[in-house]
């Protein structure tokens, strides 16, 4: 394995004060709640969520940005938490799978995943759902080919892909049908 990246000691043009490499206080806003913890600046957002904040919904599948299991949103935009430094998310809003449901009420995409059996082992599912909800918001849901293309950053080794597309289609179609509630 290679050594984790350590921030450069060279003077930076940025106005941000240099912190680390020793553990520093990091404050993250996750699903609307502020959390402050000590961690080295090299700690990824994924490891901060999972190992420091015990929010294990985002999964580590590769730690290399290839599988998508760690997909979360930063300011509403989907990112790979394994390739994002936690310290770089200060001042931004992080949303994880734990923040998607409203209390006991599942998000429409979560319900559709259950209904369409869009998973088997469930390990990639948090990342799939965070991508799927973002895809619908972005409007990349025109047809199956577009959905498939925009969901191809999230690997499902159980290969539930046709059902993942069906779940996304279901939510898209219901949201276009005024007889259904909002999604």
């Amino acid at each position, binding site marked *: *394995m*290679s050594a984790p990246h350590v921030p450069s000691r060279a003077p930076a043009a940025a106005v941000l004060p240099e912190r680390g490499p020793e553990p520093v206080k990091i404050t993250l806003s996750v699903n609307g709640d502020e959390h402050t913890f000590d961690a080295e600046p090299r700690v990824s957002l994924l490891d901060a969520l999972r190992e420091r904040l015990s929010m294990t919904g985002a999964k580590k599948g*590769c730690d290399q940005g290839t599988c998508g299991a760690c997909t979360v949103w930063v300011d509403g935009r989907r990112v790979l938490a394994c390739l994002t430094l936690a310290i770089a998310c200060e001042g931004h809003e992080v949303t994880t799978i734990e923040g998607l449901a409203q209390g006991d009420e599942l998000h429409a995409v979560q319900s559709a995943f*259950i209904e369409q059996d869009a*998973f*088997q*082992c469930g*390990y*990639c599912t948090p990342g799939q759902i965070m991508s799927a909800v973002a895809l619908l918001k972005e409007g990349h849901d025109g047809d199956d080919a577009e959905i498939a293309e925009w969901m191809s950053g999230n690997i499902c080794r159980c290969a539930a892909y046709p059902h993942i597309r069906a779940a996304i289609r279901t939510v898209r179609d219901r949201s276009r049908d005024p007889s259904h509630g909002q999604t």
Partner: protein
Amino acid sequence: MTTALAIGQPTDRVDGRHKVTGGAHYSGDMLPGTTAYAVLVGARAASGRITGIDTTEALQADGVLAILTHENLPKAAAQPPLIPSLAGMPAPGQTFFPFQDDVVHYAGQPVALVVADTLERAQHAGALLRIAYAETPSVTTLDQAREEAYEPEAIFGGFVPGRNTRGDIEAGLARADVRIDATYTFAANHHNPIEPSATTAAWDGDQLTLYDATQGVAATQLTVAALLGLTPSKVHVISHYVGGSFGCKAMIWAHPALAALAARHVQRPVKLALTREQMFTSVGHREEQEQRITLGADKDGRLTALRHHKLSPTSPFDDWAEPSLGVASQIYACPHYEGVYRLVRANTMTPTFMRAPGEASGMYALETAMDDLAHQLGIDPIDLRLRNYTDMDPNTGNPWSSTGLKECYRRGAERFGWHRRNPEPRSHRDGRRLLGYGMATAGYPVYGPNNPQRARARLYADGTAVVQAATPDFGTGVATVMTQVTADALGLPLDRCRFEGGDTTLPTIAAAVGSSGAGMISAAVHTAATNLRNQLVAQAIGDAQSPLHGADPATVTVRDGRMMLRDAPETGEGYAELLHRNVLPDVEATGAWSPSPESAHYGMMTFGAQFAEVAVDPDLGLARVRRMVGAFAPGRVLNAKTARSQLMGGMLWGLGQALLEANAMDPHRGRWVASSLGEYLVPVNADAPEVDIELIEVADKVVNPLGVKGVGEVGQVGAAAAIANAIHHATGRRIRKLPITIEDLL
């Protein structure tokens, strides 16, 4: 008997809510207080000796708690033999445990274990280790060792003989009007579940708790106990959710025992998660292989002889090959047969089970050869298979316990629209793309466990039930289907039943491998729940205050939580009434099931038929699977929704095997060329076409009480052949290597 109400229904997964909310906790999600992190360091050399490990710099790094190597890690107490985990015994993936000496047998072999207070610090310290090797030349490919091939007495942990014959192969070939003789080559494959293997180990005195990602908690328990010299009663294994396995968590590799040793050393809980790169060198793989098939047939296409030889590399430790010749020797009537495994020793770890282990490769070879034969004789591929249909296992002469294969061909062909296929290659087009239609037969054996499978059922006074059996859920839907089985056996609504599994404190279930899980676990659960029902009915009959007092138990049925006379349903009472009146908080029964002795007189197999439509761009050599159709006869279907999902997953694994998945050894360095999901390609959403599945239920009174034959693997068998045959139909090219890639089609 009760009427089945829940079994077979396409019920949503009972654990679905946990899985879509992030509430499902996998082994790596477990964080007992003060957990430390262990990181494995693998050998950079593929063969040789470690001449020195300089830990100076690493030990000075912040947060490091320990660096363990062969020089300071306690030696293994014993090395259990390699026995497939369905047997229920200790089940090491290979008969080699690292850290015993300075010898390096394969690249990636664990040579150091770094423990630190955070993951980042453990990883960083691992990178600071300076390990020196005296390298010796390695052998990692078939081409390097072909001359050294040997015929093993047995493979697969001793369960499969190295050679199997029937009739007289030479006489059968001499009688043939037409022969096919071809060699098929296969790249190595890796399971790559999205959850990398992980173990968290915590000691409380001499009691060890392991949170492990495994297909069998007892397999982890017994293997770690043997390696560490512990009594199994001191090893508690918990595995509620497993993030996919596909065989790489079917056997127990070094990391659970290493996590336990590290935790004992640092006197803190330790979490050891393999990296994605380590998933290529730590949990087995499907071996590179070559298969040669010689088919003989008369002019009507009836097989007279089948010779099927396989050559593959194994580890220095074990005679392992996936049993590629098995189903291919059983699927057609053929009087003269010879199957031979040959192995070469190589500097790799021991290969292991990978979904449809053996069947996926062996049936690719046979079903490609059959397509070849059909083409040469001008016989429709389905018709050719029907001409060679067998209603008994040709190896034993025993009748199939149930089949459904002819129905699979018929229904699959209808759904696919096979009749529209012009047999002439290159005869269908869509614009400049060539279209092809291919099919293949699927088959997967029904394996029974060697030891009794157990479950416990408990009914509470409020009329709710819980049923327990030690199996983890690695995506099969076992918790859901066992809830359904319980509901029907006890006559309860589904929402009053709950399944608990994944813990060695629960009744023992062998590792759910080889598509055996649904059959053997449903048998145990059904037996336990039926015993409980019978016990409750007997208690009511014996209770002077019960409306059922003195009734003949054979006349009593149960439904909606109520026991009643079948012919006079108004006479009866609810379970809750019986328990309340007798001041009972709960009633409990256990059940155990083993395959019946009768089953030895039958051939047992799940059958299916695969169909694929492929479009090939002749200018770019790009093959795209447009749709897949599968018809399968898995006995009784416990849950139509989860069964379809598993079969669909298997078929798409066939797509990956056919067109994407490959690894190769660098013969100079003795290392895998691919070690990430960026290099080892698996199907992504854009690769996966719509998959249409027909479930054909067949009654089977032999395999187990509910007649369940399993769906985990058969979906992959034949799928790659159907795709390759479709490519032949599209292009006229017969490709005999997997995966089939652009350069093969240009």
